[in-house]
């Protein structure tokens, strides 16, 4: 891979020196275990006025290989490199599955490949070249692939912004990685906490504001249709954790609560923004 090729994705990148000057203070734990081989590497981005959003990645430590789900934002690059190195005992990454090519999800791919070698990229784009990923192995929404020995299903996501987004289901751990779905505007002291650790659970208001500000099309939604498709996804497969890039991971036992608050939030968005 020539340097120019690697840099193509990074059309919006500046020199790496720029990144270090904007590095912010670290979140709490290096990584948060969800299952015995899946962990959450949480990064926080403050939105102001007490609201924050996670821009995280997840790591699957498969048999002998490490699979990263998304690459995080260049904003958190140094911290991510340090923490991924730490959690993998210096092994780094062998495969990366990308939910979609939006920069806060894909922005570290060139840098990670420079650091850990030209590891495999699996991406669900219809046309990887256009998304700046000419070297990606293509996954198909609705299809399945074996990645580093794991069976991975790629689901059509009802909650997403970009067309080529897929939700990523790891059959072995039964974790569902949901990209821009199931986000949350958390308080600063809730950074890095899963639903099992949130002292008072999820608040409806911050589920609402996340969706209002992130998935703009929800103003047109037909709530029963949308919620019906969402609930079907969970009826069809057993899910141990819902793992959002922009939220606090949701354990199976807290999913119904989140879905109820989400439904109320969608109804509120629809009501407030009616044409």
């Amino acid at each position: 891979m020539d340097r120019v090729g690697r840099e193509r994705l990074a059309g919006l990148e500046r020199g790496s020196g720029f990144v270090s000057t904007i590095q912010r203070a670290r979140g709490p734990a290096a990584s948060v275990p969800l299952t015995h081989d899946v962990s959450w590497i949480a990064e926080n981005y403050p939105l102001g006025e007490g609201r924050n959003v996670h821009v995280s990645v997840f790591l699957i430590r498969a048999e002998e290989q490490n699979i990263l789900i998304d690459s995080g934002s260049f904003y958190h690059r140094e911290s991510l490199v340090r923490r991924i190195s730490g959690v993998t005992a210096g092994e780094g990454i062998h495969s990366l599955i990308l939910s979609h090519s939006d920069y806060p999800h894909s922005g570290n791919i060139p840098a990670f490949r420079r650091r850990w070698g030209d590891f495999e990229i699996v991406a669900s784009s219809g046309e990887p070249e256009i998304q700046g990923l000419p070297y990606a192995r293509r996954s198909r929404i609705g299809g399945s692939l074996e990645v580093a020995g794991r069976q991975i299903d790629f689901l059509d996501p009802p909650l997403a912004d970009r067309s080529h987004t897929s939700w990523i289901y790891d059959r072995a751990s039964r974790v569902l990685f949901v990209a821009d779905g199931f986000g949350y505007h958390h308080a600063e002291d809730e950074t890095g906490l899963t639903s099992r650790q949130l002292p008072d659970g999820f608040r409806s208001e911050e589920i609402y504001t996340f969706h209002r500000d992130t998935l703009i099309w929800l103003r047109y939604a037909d709530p029963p249709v949308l919620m019906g498709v969402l609930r079907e996804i969970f009826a069809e497969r057993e899910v141990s954790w819902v793992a959002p890039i922009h939220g606090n991971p949701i354990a199976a036992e807290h999913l119904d609560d989140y879905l109820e608050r989400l439904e109320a939030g969608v109804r509120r968005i629809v009501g407030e923004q009616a044409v």
Partner: protein
Amino acid sequence: MPREIHPGIHWIQEFGPDRPGIAKSLLDRGAHWYRPGREIHVPQNAFLFAGEQTLLFDTLSPAATDRILTDLEAVLDGRALDYLALSHPDVPHAGNTFRILERHPGAKLVAPGFGRTHELYHLEDAHKVGPGDSLDLGGKRLHFHDAAFLDAAMSMWMTEETSGMLLPVDWMGLPLMDGEGLLFADEFRSPVDEDRYAEFHGRVMFWLRYVDVARTQKEIDLVLETYRPRMIASAHGPVIRADVPHYFEMMKEVVERVATGGRTGVL
């Protein structure tokens, strides 16, 4: 080569790679406008507005860096680029931003003001615009708007006053066959109809699957009433220069078709 679609407004196109996957699905469902064996392309468009000052709207994808730099040079014809405006920071729309700014260091970067995550796109220093903001290029007058139909939250639409042009970005695109690059919608020999628009929107705006049809159609009427456009310049479709309301009616059909028939695929 770019095409001048209105005095001082130039259309730059990345025709995109052949998409046999889309062609196959068109064949499988017997899309009436598709001719077997023809290539299918999903274009990326950028538009250069030249008044006394110049503004480029979008950058094409990272696969077309040479194209945008070369075509831009040709239409500028020795003039400076004063502004580079991004509709939204998606890779295929914004992926050449810093390459263009490197080549045209005097150009001012303009980006949608929506939201608080500009730093995550290296857009914290961009000039942020939104509804109510205008830019007078001298002879060309641009207005910035919230995007009604979009993918990324940080998005904007634009209108240009002298031409009556609306730039609806990811909305009103369609797949092209070979030979259909840089054509006005009224120049096509194959039909430009709701089936063709539905093929595109069932991919890009997959979320139309989950909408309230009547309410979404009402929004289309509202867009028409609000902007009363005489021309449409989408980032992924042919430029429309006549009979705009007719195409808006098609787009209302598209909503209905995707909502009932589901998504057509991925882009």
